[in-house]
């Protein structure tokens, strides 16, 4: 379980974290979204002990970050791998550093390799792997020791759909086994697929938090009517009533109708662009 309460962190005049509060329960996946500079990566660095917060309190399963490092799995935003090592060596290194030994280490490496489908290139050098394969190795290094808290900072950035699916599958599996997961992303449909609760960060604080349905409630969807010579789009919080009204008020032949419910992208846009 992660409890991050009222975190503050400033870099000179820039307040990267400003009363940033986030709690993730065991088995919960929290999707952390927000524009670049919203404080997501700083938050991950503070929780993982790489940065010391100026204020606030962090507990991972009741322990301070440095004491809880063994409980934590981190996949940083940028690739952080040894190009001249193989995935197997990488996983054995990180698994070993987190306390796995001999048979349990070998089993854990095989298990996570299978889960993230990296078995086929376990003994090739990381430097010759594709970007997507390297992303999977990085995620595997974060999960190999079955951490209680998993911090994944944009783990699917720049990967193909197949890689994305295997990563999402592995993350869901970890959550089902009881890990609290904080998942930073700009690809919002992933959060729906993960069944994640959502926290929206802006200017170093969480400004909105809840399930997708809670947060989408009240957001406008859209009605689209296509005629021969034009297309009309109307944002609305009640697409059915709006459609009925639009159909009643038109005399032109309707060629197409589309009712779009609000999506996480709409939420992201409305919250992130709010003044």
């Amino acid at each position, binding site marked *: 379980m992660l409890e991050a309460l009222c975190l503050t962190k400033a870099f000179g005049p820039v307040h990267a974290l400003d009363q940033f509060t986030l709690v993730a329960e065991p088995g919960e996946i929290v999707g952390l979204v927000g524009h670049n500079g919203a404080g997501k990566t700083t938050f991950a*660095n503070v929780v*993982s002990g790489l940065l010391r917060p100026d204020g606030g309190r962090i507990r991972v399963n009741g322990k301070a970050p440095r004491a809880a*490092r063994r409980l934590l799995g981190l996949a*940083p935003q940028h*690739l952080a*791998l040894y190009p001249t090592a193989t995935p197997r060596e990488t996983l054995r290194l990180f698994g070993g550093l987190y*306390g796995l030994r001999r048979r349990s280490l070998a089993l854990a490496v095989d298990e996570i390799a299978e889960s993230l489908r990296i078995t086929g290139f376990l003994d090739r050098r990381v430097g010759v792997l594709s970007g997507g394969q390297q992303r999977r190795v990085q995620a595997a290094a974060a999960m190999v020791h079955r951490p209680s808290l998993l911090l994944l900072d944009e783990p699917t950035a720049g990967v193909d759909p197949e890689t994305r699916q295997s990563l999402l599958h592995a993350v869901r599996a970890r959550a089902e086994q009881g890990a609290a997961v904080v998942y930073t992303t700009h690809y919002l449909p992933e959060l729906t697929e993960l069944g994640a609760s959502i926290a929206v960060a802006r200017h170093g604080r969480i400004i909105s938090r809840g399930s997708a349905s809670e947060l989408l409630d009240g957001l406008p969807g859209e009605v689209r009517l296509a005629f021969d010579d034009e297309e009309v789009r109307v944002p609305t919080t009640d697409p059915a009533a709006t459609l009925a009204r639009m159909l009643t008020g038109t005399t032109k032949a309707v060629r197409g109708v589309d009712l779009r419910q609000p999506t996480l992208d709409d939420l992201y846009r409305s919250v992130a662009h709010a003044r």
Partner: protein
Amino acid sequence: MRADTARRLTLLVRHNMVLRLRDPGHLVSYLVMPMVLMLVFSPLYQAALPGGGRAQAVIGMLVMFSVLSLSVVGTALLTERTWRTWNRLRASPASGVEMLVGKALPVFALLVLQQGLLLLFGSQVVGMPVTGTFALVLLAVCVWSFALLAIGVALAGFVRSHGELAAVSDVGALAVSALGGALAPISMMPAWAQALAPLSPGYWAVAMLGAAVSGDTGTVLRTALVLALVGVAAGALACFRIGRGIGDLRG
């Protein structure tokens, strides 16, 4: 707790040794080049320094190329920075000391190996007389390797790119070697250079290694103390710098 530390250290040392051995270019060239130069310059030094020419050829080249190996030390750390793996390790249960020692020990072993092989080549092929004991020579080699390692790690904490590291270590190595008497004996250098020579760690290294092969224990201990102090000072600077974290963590 101690068992955990030992296990993590073993893991890190093994891992870093594998990484080093997979990229042996520098080490091989810094072994082959001094061997060639020892053979080429040995007659010249013998003509200039009757009785001490062979030792000057061997120890001078050894010191110059071991100082050039600073780039190997620096690169070992700098690559962790460019690969972003240093901060990734900092987020693991490994402590900063474990990470630094795990990184440094394999490089230290390779520096000792380089110098040991060059001394062996010098004595067996170039014909440098060795009257000092194995233990005395090993002590000298280890102290010099320690000083180099600490200076290299400190350098890596401050430079921002491989280009900067190469420039600093190449220019620095030549300056330290030349001023230290590795290229020309101190007695043949201009007065101003003779006055400045003790400021160069190379000066103390040449004196210490020369004393070690000739069996002068007193000189070895005195010069080793100076180099050990240089190493401790550079190591403290390196720990201070690296302890604050390498790389840009803002996000």
